[in-house]
């Protein structure tokens, strides 16, 4: 299981989101999920299982991967944790601390 985040530059917003997803994974008690951040132009269908992006590049991210999650806020841990848990379940990963 791999989750990636993307933004236009691949080092600010996406990096922040990746760190917050890692925090969510820890809170959820999930191990062994790989995460990374990159610029949107580098994302392809096989880059990962799930792509997280902010609402402003949702359009650019459409169709890049099979599973794309759009976040309204990149720092709202409550929603990020909820979205990460849902994504894990979609991909058959058990979530201990739901």
């Amino acid at each position: 299981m791999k989750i990636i985040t993307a933004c236009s530059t691949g080092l600010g917003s996406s990096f922040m989101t990746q760190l917050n997803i890692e925090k969510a994974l820890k809170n959820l008690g999930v191990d062994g999920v790989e995460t990374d951040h990159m610029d949107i132009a580098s994302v392809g269908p096989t880059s990962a299982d799930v792509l997280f992006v902010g609402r402003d590049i949702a359009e650019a991210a459409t169709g890049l991967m099979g599973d794309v999650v759009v976040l309204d806020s990149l720092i709202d841990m409550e929603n990020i944790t909820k979205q990460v848990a849902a994504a894990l379940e979609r991909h058959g990963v058990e979530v201990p601390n739901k």
Partner: protein
Amino acid sequence: MLSSYLQSGGVLVIDKVADWREAVDVVTRPLLDADTITDGYVEAIKTSISSPGGTYIDLGGGVALAHARPETGVKTTSLSVLHVGEPFALADDASHPISTMFCLAAEDANAHIDLMQALASLLTDADRLAAVNAAGSVAELTAALA
């Protein structure tokens, strides 16, 4: 600690700015003065914000992280922050009101992980974020970032 990454003189508080371009000019000034970025980096940030989808630097909670690609003019990884009393509209888009704008200058995509960890833990803590957004002086903002 985030404060250890902030450029000397890089914590700024002013009442208001004319628009988001002025906010970028103000927040990048300490980094230009310290010679950690070039004028090209400031222009690259403005071009990025005014491009389609450029408001992606709005992290939520009234906070924006102004940044561009390293090759556009980053000399040394560094950070500055501006808080304004009256929110401005990022990219002139009223759905993106910003009270606090950080300027991140990163030398590459990964080297600044400690800085980003510190920033992420600040911004995901509702109490600390509220203190940042309520800061009325450089001393208050510095304390909120510590």
